Every structure is written in structure tokens, then in C-alpha cells.
């Protein structure tokens, strides 16, 4: 049995390790780097289109109304009322946006809820026809007050108007520790929220905090349904679990959930937006086994999978009607060093020398990992900012090309001398450490083996160790008790701020700096990046961080990666402006409101 647990736990990792971090995904560089994939062309066009997408969308709707009257259907015109069936690997937990903490629930929540603001393809905060806000937030001169104006046409699917009360209720609930909302830390900078009138809300912050803008990229819950529920009981409420009690505001509504089998969404008859969805029904089918899911794609039982294993790519490519979207997603993998001596058997961390860490970076064949393990669905990373994003330091970050000789000389400079067994030693301590990862994650298993071999070649002994995911998080990651780990961050929040994982203000248990890394210069820069709302000034700060952190290396940044999204384009269609955007969180559903399907 235990083997099977591990297989599944590897799947849940992607969903569970999603810690709010930063990084904005500009599509231009990302997708163009993946030549040979279907959807990577015309990036610049898309970028310019998305800024005035409201016009594009209106045009699309007009087209569709005319098509309905014509006798011969135009193959490029949207079909109304079609069904989209999507395959997914795990069931939802709850679609209550306050408690979303896994990608499956997030997928559904994204489709059934309108958000206060949306983001465009380049992850800039945007007002779309389907956003609740009427205009971008007005930020006061001191950077501490955000005024949000809502559209006065927005309705819940039970016909009640959505207004400032819902905004206040949602944000105040998430901020309340009694609610136990996973997103609470993003809101601890809020000082007060005030209702100016029915459609205007003012957020006052305790200090200037630039990442706050993305806290407005958020769904709302209906105050009229939930306001009488005691806040401690909210997580146990049927809202988000029982479709009949889940009142939402998006283009589709939650209509059925058969646990462990499927989730059905249908068009919201009370949808208020000017742009209406083409898809009449969206079904999420849950597959326990990814191989079965791939076969279902080939057979045509499902039209889309958000992520298939790279090992199944050949089978999918052999099928003409299926196309694969290969651009890496908003997540990156890394090797993290621990600086705390007590985490090593002989009570000395071997990673304290900067040259030693740089040597490890030179010794690792990262490009080899991207080519052979990721099969091209990855891109090298040199800093914690996604390649192509506005915070990306580009060439300012040090790129450690594979160079074992350079690694050996740096290790020698740092005082490491080979012992009798060929393993390096310094002051009587052998350079030998355990590299932990979660058992069952085959990508990490393979990468750990490559790391072991690469480092053995320069005289460092690595023992890879796979641990059950829940156990690992509990015993090692959260308390910061590990020698070195292989793990990834999911950048679900598009802001580049990552203070809580790199700053010495955030040692466990209060923060996520589990490697006990301390660099005062970088600590100060993270704070500086939060204190201005001017994006170009912020970009300069993050470029500086990228330069310093890639020199000092608390992590070896390995690669940005993604899982291939597969689409049956013989039955599921979109205009180029509405294609999925891999670099965004939930980007595989980007502009789904404008998609259409030939299936009934």
C-alpha cells in the first residue's frame, strides 16, 4: 500500500507546496523559448491585444450572434452552449474562495467566481469586462490608501446585488485569525477597510506595501449568505461544498459534485457581465491514474488536461488532434542549503563558504536536467524571479554554466582537500550530506540522482533520501530541520516579493526561511522593494537582489518547469488573444469565458 500512497503524494505536492510567492510571468520570453510547441507563436500580438481585450471580446460576442442566424456555420465563429470536459488528477476540497488551498478547488473556484480585479497576460492588474471593479484602484500619494470602485451591475447568481458590503465581509473574514484562512498573511498589512458608498471601498494600509495590489486580485464571498455564520464555524459551513448553498458571481455556477468522480458547472442564468460565456457546461472528471487520463484524452472522453506527465508526451504527440502546450509554468525548483550547524550529524554545516556554494552550482548540470528529465518543459533559473517577468534581473544574475573543473578549483580555494576515499574534507569533516525530497515524485527522484552523480564527480558525497510528503513537511521543512532539500516554489501570487522565504526576519516557525539563511544586505533590499509602489523603482531593487542572491546562493536555483497542458483542438477552440497562458497561476484557464466547444 505504502508505495501507492507515495505515488499519489507526489501528485499532491504540486498542489500543496503552493506557497504564496512572487514573480510576474511575462509571456514573451517564456513561451518563445519553447520552440516546437504549438501555441508559442505571436506573443507580441497577444500582449498588445490583451490590454484592450474588452474591445476584442465585444467583437467576438457580436460575431456569435450573427452566426446563429446564418445557415452555414462559419468554422471560426464560437459555438454557443457546448460542453467542455476536463481531466484532473485530484478531487476538490471546497470551492469557498476563503479556504482555497489546492489547485483542483482553485480551478473550479476560478470558473464560478468573478474577481475584484483580474490580471492580463503579463500579470499586470487589469479591469476586464468580467471583473467586479469598474476601474483600476486609485492609490493615494503616500502609497497607503487604495480606493476601489465597483461596477454597479454585478449580481450574485441568486439575483442579489454584489456591492461594497461583500468586499468588506470577504476581506475582514480573511483577516480574522479565527477564520483560519490560508491567505491571511497577505492581508496583515491592512489597517482598516471602509465603505465609502455602496460601490466604493477604501483600504488603508499600516505602511507602504507594494505587493498589496495583488491582494485585490481576489474572489469575493456573499455577505448576505454568510454574515450570520459564526466565524469559527465558517470552515465547516456547507458553502463551497454543497452546490445548492454555494452562491457565486461568475459566468458559470457550481451545479453538481459527485465526490471522487466529477464536478459539473453550468452557465449562470443570472450572469451580469456584458461578455457572456460560450461554454454551456464544464465538467471536471477526476482520474486516479494519470495514464488512464492520457488514454481518455486519446479516446476523446476528455478534451483537455491541465497537466500530463512528461513521460506520456510521446503518446500524445502521436495523436494528430491533440496539441501540447509546453511553456513552463509559474514555479521553479531549487536545492536549498541549511546554514544551521545542528542539522548535520557532526554539527557543522558544510555550506557556509560562499565559494563552496558556488562550486556546487558549477558542478550541477542544470541544462542536462532540463533536457533529459523535463524533456524541454523547463527553463534555467538564476534568481527567484521568473524569466521574462518585470522583476527578472536577466544577465545581472550570475549564470553558473556546467563546469566541474571550475567547481573543483573553487572547492580547493575554500579549503576542501580530498581524503583517502576521494571525498573532500575540511577541518576533519567529510563533505557528505543528505539531500531530501518527497518520495514518489519521479522528477525529483531523477534530479536527485543526477545531483548525486554530479557532486560525486567533484568529490562531494550526496545521499538522496525520499520521505513521505506529509511527514517531510511536518518534521523537516516547517521546523527547518534538514541538511539540504530539493523542492520547488509555486509563484501563485504574481508579485516578486519573496521576503518571507529569504529574509532572516522569517526564520521558522514564523516564516519559511527553513535554511536559516542570513544576509543583511539582501534583507534590507526585500524591505525596500515593498516600500515603493513605483514599478520601475521596484524592478531596480529586484534586479539588485537577483544579482546579490545569485552570487551568495542560499539556494541553487535550478529551473522553471511546467507540466504539459494537452488540448483536443478538434473540439475545443479559442481566438489567439484568449489562448491559455502558462506563466500565470491557473493560466491554463485564461479567458475561458471566450472559449467554445463543438461537443454537446
Amino acid at each position, binding site marked *: 500500500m505504502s508505495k501507492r500512497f507515495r505515488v499519489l*503524494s507526489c501528485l499532491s505536492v504540486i498542489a500543496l507546496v503552493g506557497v504564496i510567492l512572487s514573480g510576474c510571468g511575462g509571456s514573451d520570453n517564456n513561451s518563445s523559448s519553447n520552440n516546437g510547441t504549438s501555441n508559442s507563436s505571436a506573443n507580441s500580438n497577444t500582449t498588445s491585444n490583451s490590454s484592450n481585450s474588452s474591445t476584442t471580446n465585444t467583437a467576438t460576442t457580436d460575431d456569435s450572434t450573427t452566426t446563429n442566424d446564418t445557415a452555414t456555420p462559419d468554422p471560426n465563429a464560437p459555438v454557443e452552449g457546448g460542453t467542455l470536459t476536463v481531466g484532473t488528477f485530484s478531487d476538490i476540497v471546497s470551492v469557498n474562495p476563503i479556504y482555497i488551498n489546492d489547485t483542483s478547488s482553485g480551478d473550479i473556484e476560478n470558473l464560478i467566481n468573478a474577481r475584484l480585479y483580474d490580471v492580463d497576460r503579463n500579470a499586470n492588474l487589469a479591469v476586464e469586462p468580467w471583473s467586479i471593479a469598474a476601474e483600476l484602484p486609485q492609490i493615494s500619494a503616500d502609497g497607503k490608501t487604495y480606493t476601489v470602485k465597483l461596477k454597479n451591475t454585478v449580481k450574485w447568481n441568486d439575483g442579489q446585488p454584489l456591492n461594497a458590503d461583500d468586499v468588506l465581509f470577504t476581506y475582514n473574514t480573511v483577516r480574522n485569525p479565527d477564520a483560519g484562512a490560508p491567505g491571511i498573511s497577505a492581508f496583515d498589512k491592512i489597517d482598516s477597510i471602509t465603505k465609502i458608498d455602496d460601490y466604493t471601498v477604501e483600504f488603508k494600509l499600516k505602511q507602504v506595501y507594494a505587493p498589496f495590489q495583488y491582494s485585490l486580485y481576489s474572489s469575493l464571498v456573499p455577505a448576505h449568505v454568510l454574515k450570520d455564520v459564526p466565524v469559527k464555524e465558517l470552515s465547516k459551513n456547507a458553502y463551497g461544498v454543497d452546490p445548492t448553498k454555494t452562491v457565486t458571481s461568475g459566468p458559470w455556477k457550481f451545479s453538481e459534485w459527485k465526490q471522487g468522480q466529477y464536478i459539473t458547472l453550468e452557465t449562470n442564468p443570472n450572469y451580469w457581465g456584458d461578455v457572456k460565456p460560450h461554454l454551456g457546461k464544464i465538467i471536471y472528471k477526476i482520474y486516479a491514474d494519470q495514464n488512464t487520463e492520457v488514454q481518455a484524452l486519446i479516446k476523446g472522453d476528455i478534451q483537455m488536461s491541465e497537466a500530463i506527465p512528461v513521460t506520456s508526451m510521446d503518446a500524445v504527440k502521436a495523436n494528430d488532434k491533440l496539441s501540447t502546450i509546453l511553456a513552463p509554468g509559474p514555479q521553479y525548483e531549487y536545492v536549498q542549503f541549511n546554514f544551521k550547524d545542528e542539522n548535520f550529524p557532526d554539527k557543522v554545516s558544510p555550506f557556509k563558504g560562499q565559494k563552496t556554494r558556488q562550486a556546487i552550482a558549477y558542478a550541477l548540470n542544470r541544462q542536462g536536467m532540463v533536457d533529459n528529465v523535463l524533456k524541454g518543459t523547463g527553463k534555467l533559473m538564476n534568481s527567484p524571479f521568473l524569466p521574462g517577468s518585470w522583476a527578472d534581473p536577466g544577465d545581472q544574475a550570475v549564470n553558473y554554466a556546467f563546469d566541474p573543473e571550475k567547481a573543483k578549483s573553487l572547492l580547493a580555494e575554500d579549503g576542501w582537500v580530498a581524503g583517502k576515499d576521494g571525498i573532500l574534507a575540511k577541518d576533519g569533516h567529510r563533505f557528505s550530506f543528505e539531500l531530501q525530497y518527497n518520495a514518489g515524485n519521479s522528477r525529483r527522484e531523477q534530479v536527485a540522482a543526477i545531483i548525486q552523480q554530479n557532486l560525486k564527480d567533484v568529490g562531494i558525497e550526496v545521499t538522496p533520501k525520499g520521505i513521505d510528503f506529509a511527514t517531510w513537511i511536518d518534521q523537516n521543512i516547517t521546523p527547518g530541520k534538514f541538511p539540504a532539500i530539493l523542492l520547488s516554489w509555486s509563484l501563485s501570487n504574481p508579485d516578486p516579493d519573496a521576503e518571507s522565504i529569504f529574509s532572516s526576519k522569517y526564520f521558522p516557525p514564523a516564516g519559511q526561511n527553513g535554511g536559516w539563511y542570513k544576509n543583511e544586505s539582501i534583507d534590507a533590499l526585500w524591505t525596500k522593494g515593498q516600500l515603493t509602489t513605483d514599478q520601475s523603482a521596484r524592478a531596480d531593487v529586484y534586479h539588485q537582489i537577483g544579482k546579490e542572491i545569485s552570487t551568495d546562493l542560499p539556494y541553487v536555483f535550478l529551473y522553471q518547469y511546467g507540466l504539459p497542458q494537452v488540448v483536443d483542438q478538434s473540439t475545443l477552440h479559442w481566438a489567439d488573444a484568449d489562448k491559455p497562458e502558462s506563466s500565470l497561476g491557473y493560466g491554463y484557464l485564461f479567458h475561458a469565458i471566450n472559449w467554445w466547444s463543438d461537443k454537446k
Partner: protein
Amino acid sequence: MTEYLVRRLFQSVLVLFLISILTFAMIHAAPGGPTQVFLAPGLSPEAAKVQAHNLGLDRPVLVQYSIWLGHLVTGDLGYTFKNHIPVGDILWPTVKNTMVLMGAAWLFSLLIAIPWGIYNSTSQYGFSDQTSSFVSYIGFAMPTFWFGIILQEYFSLKHDWLPLSDMYTMGKEGNMGDLFMHLILPVSVLTLGFLASYTKYAKASMLEVLGQDYIRTARAKGLREGRVIFRHALRNALIPIITILGLDLPILVGGAALTERVFNWPGMGRLFVDMAVAREYSVLMSITLVVSVIVVVGNLVADILYAIVDPRVQLGSKGGAAR
């Protein structure tokens, strides 16, 4: 008989109670609790504590067990931690689905295995017997999930004869014809696995009985071979087979996890794996309990069946079933 039944029932309850203590202790001894799995890593320690308290996870294990047992006695299986759904709502449909799949596979394999085994016992080393040995080897050696994938490739992908996976086509829930089509492939996979052992057992058991003196006596009396086989030999030969079936019950109930996975069958095996990863204690406890009840009851039924097929077995005052 009544006294025997009462005593066995009492023993069964005791066994179930002990099993529940043991599994509760084991589940809680495993490192990593539900809060690590479903609370966000970004959640502050205070907020995590509030959540753990709301869920009663900060109480001593013994107290948690007593509460769980108290609810169980009143028929309440509890709620899931992460979304507060009654465990019964999740569990019972999967129990039913597993029963449908396993029941069909079990019945089908018995219907083939017992007659085949009997026939093979009468013509040992013949063509049929050799074939059965060959099938047994394949059944033992081939991983069930792999065989499942082969069948899917051929019958569903290459030829569109049978559905690939699931229990029903979307929108046809409850349609018997649709269920039947969906059962064919997974039942074939499971049957091959069962067939291997059951045919062997049936044959071996028959051979042993056929060598007995009373069979020779029956034949010497000039009885027709059919009467000897079915009237005299079969009833005796069935006893060890019933024992095997009783012992196989847990495999029947829990062992289909892989087949359920490959065919995306919404059953208990899949649920157990998912819930173990999520550390949903109350669901895990309930599944263990359901499986235990089935095994205990199954063994009880097997014992009672002995008495029916074998008049020599007397249940009651003289120390229970003869084994």
C-alpha cells in the same frame, strides 16, 4: 446453534473493538497530521492552532478516540477535517461501487473456476488441465494493472468496443446496460487473478476427495460417475474452498485498489489511498472498520456454511466449529 452464534457475535464485537483501537493508535502514530497536509504553509502558527483546536486535533489521542467511539455507537462516522463532509456520504457510495465490481468478478470467477477445477480433476494432465495451469501461471505472474492497460488499449482505444474507464458514461448514471459495458474490462482483469488460484484449489480439493475410500465404495456400488462426483465428492471438496473464500474476503474488499485506479472505478480502494495521503483520520477509521466487519461476518458465514455442506460439522456446545 443459537448459543454458538451469540458467542461468535460477542467475539466479533470484541475483535472489531480491538481492531479499532489498534488502527486508531497506528494512524495517530504516523508522523504528519492533517493540519500539515491541508493548511497552507503560509498560515501563521497561531492561526494553525486555532484550526487544530476547532477540529479537536489538539486533544489527547485517548480523548479523541473516546469521542470517535461515542459517535460510532450512535451510528455517526464523523466528518472529514478539511471540508466537514459527513464520512458516510463519501464512504457508502464507494462501498457499494466496490461491492458491485468485486461481487461481479468473484461470482464470475467462481462460476468458471469450480466447474473447470472439477472437470480437470477427472481428466488430469489433459488439454483442459494444461490450459488451466497455463492460465494460472499468467494470472499469477502478470501485474493486474498492466493487464488492465493492455485490455484498455485493445478493446477501447484500438477498437471502440468498450468504454475506457469509469462506472457509468456521464449522464447515464443508474443505467444497467451501461454499467454492464463498464464492468466487462475490470471484471476480466480481476477474474484472471482469481481464476488462477480458485481453479487450482477446486481441482486439488477434488483430487483429494476422489482418492478417499468412500468414493471408491460409491463407485464399487456401481453409481454413475456423475452422481459420484456431484453427490459424494463435491460437497466434501467444497469445504476447503469455502475456507479459502472466507480468507480471501479482505482481498476482495481492499485488494482492488490498483484495478480501481486503472479503470477509474469510484470504489473504496481508491478512496482509502486518497484519504491516507490527506490524513483524513475519520474516513480511514471507517474504511478499516467496514473491511473488518466484512471479514468477521464473512468468516462467520463460512463457518455456518460448513455445517450446511458438511453434516459432520456440528456447531454448538462442543467447542464451536471443527476446523
